[in-house]
């Protein structure tokens, strides 16, 4: 027996986005938004493939703030590197072995790496066990890998409990 509300978080997100797009809290829009928020998950549920969900919402929120702060730091660093009168870059490809396994956590990790200082994720190996990064200015490969594993991957493992 299927329930009427299979994905409560998705429904809430759809309703909030609908209200933001229309910039209103009028009852008509609330009603229409609620109907859409109920219908869309029911119609698209079969297209989903199961992914681990966020088990620790507060830690996820803290992780978001950490990433936002790191984006600021990343931009200062990129600006400093690019505005030098003579470019002095030490570009490199680095391979990071992954401890997390499923698709969604790996996607979050790769996106985080792309937005944070000095690194862009370039590829995932076919068996999803290693991640290829491009680094703009590499000092020490082992230190970079340790930082990524400690700062981001360990936290993601806690958040998704995997």
């Amino acid at each position, binding site marked *: 027996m299927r329930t009427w509300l299979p994905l409560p978080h998705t429904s809430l997100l759809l309703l909030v986005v609908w209200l933001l797009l229309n910039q209103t809290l009028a009852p008509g829009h609330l009603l229409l938004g609620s109907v859409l928020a109920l219908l869309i998950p029911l119609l698209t549920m079969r297209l989903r493939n199961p992914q681990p969900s966020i088990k620790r919402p507060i830690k996820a929120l803290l992780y978001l703030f950490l990433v936002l702060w790191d984006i600021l730091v990343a931009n200062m660093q990129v600006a400093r590197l690019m505005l030098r009168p003579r470019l002095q870059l030490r570009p490199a490809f680095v391979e990071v072995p992954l401890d997390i396994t499923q698709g969604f956590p790996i996607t979050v990790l790769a996106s985080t790496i792309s937005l944070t200082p000095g690194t862009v994720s370039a590829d995932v190996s076919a068996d999803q066990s290693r991640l290829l990064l491009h680094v*703009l200015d590499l000092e020490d490969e082992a230190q970079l890998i340790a930082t990524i594993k400690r700062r981001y991957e360990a936290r993601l493992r806690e958040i998704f409990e995997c």
Partner: protein
Amino acid sequence: MPFWFELIVSFFLLGGGAFILLGSFGLVRLPDFYTRLHAPTKATTLGMWGLLVGALLLSSWNSGMLNPHHLLIAVFLLLTTPVSSYILAKSALHHRLDWGTQTRGQEQAKRYMDDH
């Protein structure tokens, strides 16, 4: 509108414009594709956020209530920029695009060229 509010909005707008300009400047200046990828991914995202926060503050002040719909674009960019940079890097690897000769770890990258 008081002066301090204009000052805050100007700070966000100018910061946003400066980072967007920096991203495009890096696109022209940096030496090879993989390093060029860094500039728009990071600087343009932060620049857009600066502009959006400035626009949000200004429109909220003008209408007298908080209207946070500009945050939709900010969240959208946060989710999509890493994805497009990832798929660009992947297609560049697939096309065997040149990297600068002093790039380290070239053997590791070569292993990824054929599996996708």
